[in-house]
């Protein structure tokens, strides 16, 4: 065994790339877990093809997983990778653009066959010609070594054995970055518990990869990234979709109401349904409807029945839910609608992320039907967003839209697990008694302009609601022109008034004298923050704010905006928040719009800011 140096580095970006069938998502996921357990801060970016299983070796079938980890806090999955693990030529070809200059390439040389090279459109083998001379290339026959490692395992087919090559890669990279191995080994043991041969094969492959790093003379150094100094407590990795699902469950508990969740599968929102449908012992009722209209309708029904009621979808499904949303707005029923945005319009790029649905969230319904809109900024933030949406929905009797997106949905970050006891009480009181001269009037209002909710089954409070304009107070159908106008204004005022009940917009402006404010919303938070950090590191001044509440805006938003000479609004769309800001505050905010189906790179925003400071 040669003596290896162990170098300390502060941050590393690794990209695993291979065929859809190569198990790259799993590999990345396991590496993330080990990294998290080790104590680094991290951010991940899964990036998979639209096809379920594309033909082996094809360019469009490449599945990638990028992880950025560090000993300090991490804000994005990283602009460019330092290390690329390429399981085949197609993976190499599609991922090279994302590799930093002089980066490391670890290639499964066994997969660089003539056939695979041709499929990837290489006329010669890049590992053999000098086209990769700008990088540090390690060619490793991973398939062969995996097969060898598993050779002694009884009852394992060759195909099964070969599928362990991702574990080989994982073992190797785990060694390179000094990741703990026990976490992964335990996971393998548990995951394949039912199939001892497969378990043994995977374990062998993982260990072989690790040992190869350790023993082969190939690698000059092993790296270590020290744990980040995160706040003390117990942590886990969490994706946005899982956090959303758990947030809804938490909200149900904090409201003291059972959760009713109606949804129709759609990428990238389906995992919320998947997760919630597992939680039956939490009393969660999930309903896979025949379409998004039915899901939204059922959710309205659940809300009328006094449950905490929610639905989740992505863009195309939003189009279909709008009519029910408008109904819920006039019925004034609590309802949480999660839109996990993806790249549109139409089917667009269904597995890619975008922030294209802010306008439809604001204005997607005919007539005047304003509803509150909020947007989480990171995977873990989805947990709180689900609770906050539930709180607002219940307290103000209104549908609330949560704008998550494909990036948040699938990306993971370490999360300081909250103590359930620390969560807010969001329970509300249902009506139990007549409230007007012995009658029950469903459209009387409290100080928040919220109407009383009498749940079916409550004796004596029978009443009828519906989509025709309601008489103020009494709640019967009213064709009175003045009442209609009053009710339109009332519904708008109710939503606007929520601004009294939310925190002011915080500004991050360490210099206190920046001239430019960068303001964003949703999942671009990390990239914007990282960009500002870099700008400041470069000695320039920039202020930063991030809107969690998009309707209504926090009370001080206008004041914040007007404090700066220039306002820049980076968005992963063609400019939507910027329109709302300009209309509302008459501030000459400028849009920096990028709509490539990918999360922002901090570098892009950094460049844009530097142009303007």
């Amino acid at each position, binding site marked *: 065994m040669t003596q290896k140096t162990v170098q300390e580095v502060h941050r590393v970006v690794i990209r695993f790339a291979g065929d859809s069938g190569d198990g790259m998502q799993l590999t990345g996921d396991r590496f993330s877990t080990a990294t998290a357990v080790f104590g680094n801060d991290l951010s991940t970016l899964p990036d998979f093809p639209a096809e379920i299983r594309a033909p082996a070796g094809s360019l469009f079938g490449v599945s990638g997983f990028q992880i950025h980890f560090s000993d300090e806090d991490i804000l994005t999955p990283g602009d460019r990778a330092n290390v690329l693990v390429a399981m085949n030529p197609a993976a190499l070809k599609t991922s090279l653009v994302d590799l930093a200059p002089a980066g490391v390439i670890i290639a499964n040389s066994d997969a660089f066959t003539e056939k695979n090279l041709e499929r990837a459109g290489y006329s010669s083998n890049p590992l053999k010609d000098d086209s990769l001379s700008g990088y540090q290339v390690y060619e490793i026959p991973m398939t062969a070594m995996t097969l060898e490692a598993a050779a002694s395992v009884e009852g394992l087919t060759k195909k099964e054995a070969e599928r362990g090559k991702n574990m080989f890669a994982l073992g190797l990279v785990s060694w390179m970055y000094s990741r703990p191995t026990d976490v992964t080994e335990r996971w393998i043991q548990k995951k394949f518990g039912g199939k001892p041969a497969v378990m043994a094969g995977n374990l062998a492959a993982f260990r072989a990869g690790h040992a190869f790093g350790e023993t082969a003379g190939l690698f000059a150094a092993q790296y270590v990234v020290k744990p980040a100094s995160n706040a003390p407590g117990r942590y886990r990795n969490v994706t946005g979709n899982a956090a959303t699902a758990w947030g809804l469950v938490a909200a149900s508990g904090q409201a003291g109401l059972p959760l009713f969740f109606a949804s129709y599968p759609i990428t990238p929102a389906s995992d919320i349904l998947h997760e919630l449908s597992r939680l039956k012992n939490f009393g969660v009722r999930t309903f896979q409807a*025949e379409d998004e*209209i039915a899901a939204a309708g059922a959710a*309205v029904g659940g809300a009328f029945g006094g449950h905490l009621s929610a639905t989740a979808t992505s863009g195309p499904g939003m189009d279909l839910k709008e009519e029910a949303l408008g109904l819920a707005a006039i019925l004034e029923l609590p309802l949480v609608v999660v839109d996990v945005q993806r790249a549109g319009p139409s089917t667009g790029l269904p597995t890619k992320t975008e922030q294209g649905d802010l306008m439809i969230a604001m204005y997607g319904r005919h007539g005047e039907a304003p509803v509150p809109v909020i947007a989480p900024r990171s995977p873990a933030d989805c947990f709180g967003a689900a609770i906050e949406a539930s709180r607002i929905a219940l307290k103000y009797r209104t549908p609330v839209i949560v704008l998550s997106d494909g990036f948040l949905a699938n990306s993971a970050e370490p999360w300081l697990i909250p103590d359930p006891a620390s969560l807010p009480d969001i329970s509300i009181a249902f009506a139990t008694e007549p409230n007007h001269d012995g009658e029950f009037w469903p459209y009387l209002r409290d100080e928040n302009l919220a109407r009383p909710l009498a749940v079916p089954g409550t004796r004596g409070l029978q009443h009828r609601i519906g*989509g025709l304009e309601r008489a103020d107070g009494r709640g019967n159908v009213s064709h009175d022109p003045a009442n209609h106008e009053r009710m339109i204004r009332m519904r708008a005022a109710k939503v606007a008034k929520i601004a009294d009940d939310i925190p002011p917009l915080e500004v991050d402006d360490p210099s206190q004298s920046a001239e430019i404010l960068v303001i964003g919303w949703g999942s671009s938070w990390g990239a914007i923050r990282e960009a500002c950090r870099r700008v400041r590191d470069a000695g320039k001044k920039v202020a930063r704010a991030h809107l969690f509440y998009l309707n209504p805006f926090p009370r001080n938003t206008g004041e914040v905006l007007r404090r700066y000479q220039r306002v820049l609004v980076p968005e992963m769309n063609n400019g939507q928040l910027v329109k709302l800001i300009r209309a509302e505050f008459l501030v000459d905010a400028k849009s920096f719009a990028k709509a490539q189906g990918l999360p922002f790179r901090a570098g892009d925003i950094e460049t844009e800011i530097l142009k303007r400071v």
Partner: protein
Amino acid sequence: MVEGNGAVGTQAALTKKDFESDQEVRWCPGCGDYAILSAVQSVMPTLGIEPHKVVVVSGIGCSSRFPYYMNTYGMHSIHGRAATIATGLATARPDLSVWVVTGDGDALAIGGNHLIHTLRRNVNLTILMFNNQIYGLTKGQLSPTSERGKVTKSTPFGSVDQPFNPIALALGAEGTFVARALAVDRPHLTGVLSRAAAHRGTSFIEVYQNCNIFNDGAFDMLTDKAHKVQNQIRLEHGKPIRFGERDERAVVQLRDGSLKIVEAGSVAEGEILVHDEHRGEPSLAFALAHLSTGPTMPTPIGIFRDVERPVYGDDVERQLVAAQAKLGAGDLGKLLMSGDTWEVK
């Protein structure tokens, strides 16, 4: 008083008045909807369900104004979507008695998909579809039950659409309780309503209802004094299917399985088809649905099918109970701690 659908209570007897709201009824004078409202209001007290345990959900259409007139909980919702809302409500709240009131356009045009999915799931709902074979509220366009050749505002040269046979459609969609009644035949209608309410799962009742403004007389052949006896084929469980003034006509099943109307005298009594609501396989009910292609000829009235099948909301509930029994009530703290976690000190 017991919770839920179909259970008989013990409290001071309810009356029709208990189910009447204070709202002025706003259908055209002479509209068939009045009779259905009155029938429903008079059946309700006999079901032993208190008004506050009943919810009536409707879509949009003349028929869909119904909930406003019932002193129960109610929602007048969106065109075509009543079944979705009712599905959510009945699934969340299996303790309620949830009724859907809808029209032929509301249920079969824009709402067709929800109807068939509700039927296959067997959600615990009673669906009353007022079929006037026209769009009333929008003032007289073709509906999916309007007959071919019909001249309406939207088909001035006559319709070229083949109408649905709503009973056949409901049976094709796995309906467990499928019936037809006439708005104007109160005793028969109330009988069917009681049976529908007693059925756990989705009960679908097509009620032929005259729209005297836009489609007057559509059901005269079944309701006119002069014709009704010849044309109403009453389906009664366990009884041979005979009809006519002196029961002189009968339905027989031919060797090839098809049904035919014959002179009762021309066949042996044993040959006459005996109606069986409860037959598991729906083909006989389907054949009966096809005995008539519209309400202008001898047409079966009554319960085509009434079978038991697991009920969607009940099964959902059962899974929750089973999961809780097995895993214990959900513990958020544990859930969040599940999987790989680590401590930062």
